[in-house]
């Protein structure tokens, strides 16, 4: 039996099909994964993301510490509440995890890391935090729900106002990648779907009640299956599939998240990244659109004139009604490849992702 989130019983009694994800028993769907996907693209859906790990970092030198710990630069976080996506690298430039860090105060930042990596993340962060006297607090007392879709904020706001007077109103005024709240109740305009929406952190004891109210307000319950097709359409990487400890962000489509300026900022993994850039990054992560019928899946072989590559995440896109994927291929790969699907080589086109944003196709099918 895996770990359970505070919503485990809620999922089971709703008839969810439960699977293991990152050591947690999580709902993969509550019926039709495709309907859940469309609910988020067209209206509003919610996900239990309490398996993810909330870490508070406190102390006067927290910003200085995060500038050393993360490949992106928290110096970009000037306005209170602003969020930043970053990789946390090892000395070899490999990705230990990807995370979002929220700027609360100069002596308080909040990070959210992946479920399956949380133990090694916490150990790594603690190991390096000591030198900066940064206090690490893992918030097992909090749960997290992502409410996503064009109608998500409007449906959630009145319920957030019931939780904390004014919180829902503040959530409606949020700009993308900003957050508002306090130590207990915290709302951010972030997500993993390519739609507007909120991620809501609140005491674990109160999450089942909020979930029930959201459901009654017309927010569809959605499982990890839909979460995966939504994030892939949105062009967002999944840790463990699209990047890991042995691959640098430069080979994982995450160069945009690495802040090499200013040059004098020393961060863990910097030297290895600079070395890789000097030597030439051998591979790149690309988006693929399958030209034929069929479904791209992780680990399928990608054949290109520049050499072989591999699909890292693949799925059927419910929005495009075509199969899409991320693949890691030789850096010299052009715009046409073939993918080995069950022994047949099928043509696929290399495309710029995101595939879908705000309910609309961003690529030509």
């Amino acid at each position, binding site marked *: 039996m895996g770990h359970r989130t505070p919503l485990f019983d809620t999922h089971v009694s709703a008839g969810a099909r439960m699977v293991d994800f990152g050591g947690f028993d999580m709902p993969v769907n509550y019926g039709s*994964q495709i309907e859940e996907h469309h609910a988020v693209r067209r209206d509003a859906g919610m996900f239990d993301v309490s398996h993810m790990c909330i870490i508070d970092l406190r102390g006067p030198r927290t910003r200085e510490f995060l500038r050393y710990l993360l490949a992106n630069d928290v110096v970009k976080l000037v306005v209170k509440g602003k969020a930043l996506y970053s990789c946390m690298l090892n000395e070899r430039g490999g990705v230990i995890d990807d995370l979002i860090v929220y700027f609360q105060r100069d002596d308080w930042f909040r990070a959210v890391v992946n479920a399956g990596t949380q133990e090694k993340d916490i150990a790594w962060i603690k190991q390096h935090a000591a030198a900066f006297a940064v206090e690490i607090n893992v918030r097992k007392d909090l749960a997290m729900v992502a409410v996503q879709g064009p109608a998500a904020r409007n449906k959630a706001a009145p319920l957030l106002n019931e939780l904390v007077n004014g919180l829902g109103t503040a959530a409606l005024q949020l700009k993308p990648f900003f957050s508002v709240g306090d130590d207990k109740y915290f709302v951010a305009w972030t997500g993993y779907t390519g739609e507007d929406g909120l991620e809501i952190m609140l005491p674990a004891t109160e999450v089942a009640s909020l979930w029930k109210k959201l459901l009654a307000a017309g927010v569809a319950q959605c499982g990890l299956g839909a979460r995966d097709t939504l994030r892939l359409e949105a062009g967002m990487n999944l840790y463990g599939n699209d990047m890991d400890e042995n691959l640098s962000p430069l080979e994982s489509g995450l160069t945009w998240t690495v802040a090499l300026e200013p040059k004098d900022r020393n961060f863990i993994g910097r030297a290895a990244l600079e070395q890789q850039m000097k030597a030439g990054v051998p591979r790149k992560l690309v988006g693929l659109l399958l030209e034929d019928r*069929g479904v791209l899946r992780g680990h399928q072989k990608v054949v290109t004139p520049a050499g072989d590559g591999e699909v890292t995440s693949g799925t059927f896109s419910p929005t495009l009604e075509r199969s899409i994927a991320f693949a890691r291929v030789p850096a010299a790969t052009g715009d046409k490849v073939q993918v080995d699907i069950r022994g047949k080589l099928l043509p696929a086109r290399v495309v710029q992702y995101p595939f879908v944003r705000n309910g609309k196709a961003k690529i030509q099918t």
Partner: protein
Amino acid sequence: MSSTPANLKYVKTHEWLRVDSDGTVTIGITDHAQHALGDVVFVDPPEVGRICNAGEACAVVESVKAASDIYAPIGGTVIASNGELSGAPELLNQSPYEGGWIFKLKPSNPAELNSLLDAKAYEEVLKSEA
């Protein structure tokens, strides 16, 4: 709950088979199988004229989750495949025993039909897997 029509034959790999009045057979996947697969998004049926042996993988069903082989419950020659599925693969979820049939065979050895499970025996298989 999965349903298991009494007029069909079954195999442990979750295909059903119906013997039609002309002696040919129609094959699909069970309600249990479509539940387990989740939303079906693509079906690759065998070509007409292909000869399949009993137990041979001869079609592929792709769901949002995974690709699954579909096995011929008995041997025979493929005489038809369900063209509706190319435009509406969700028929496998919505109507696994009717609109979601996958292909038809002319049996090469009708005696093989005797080795198939009836509805009751298939339900026992489901219970043992649960």
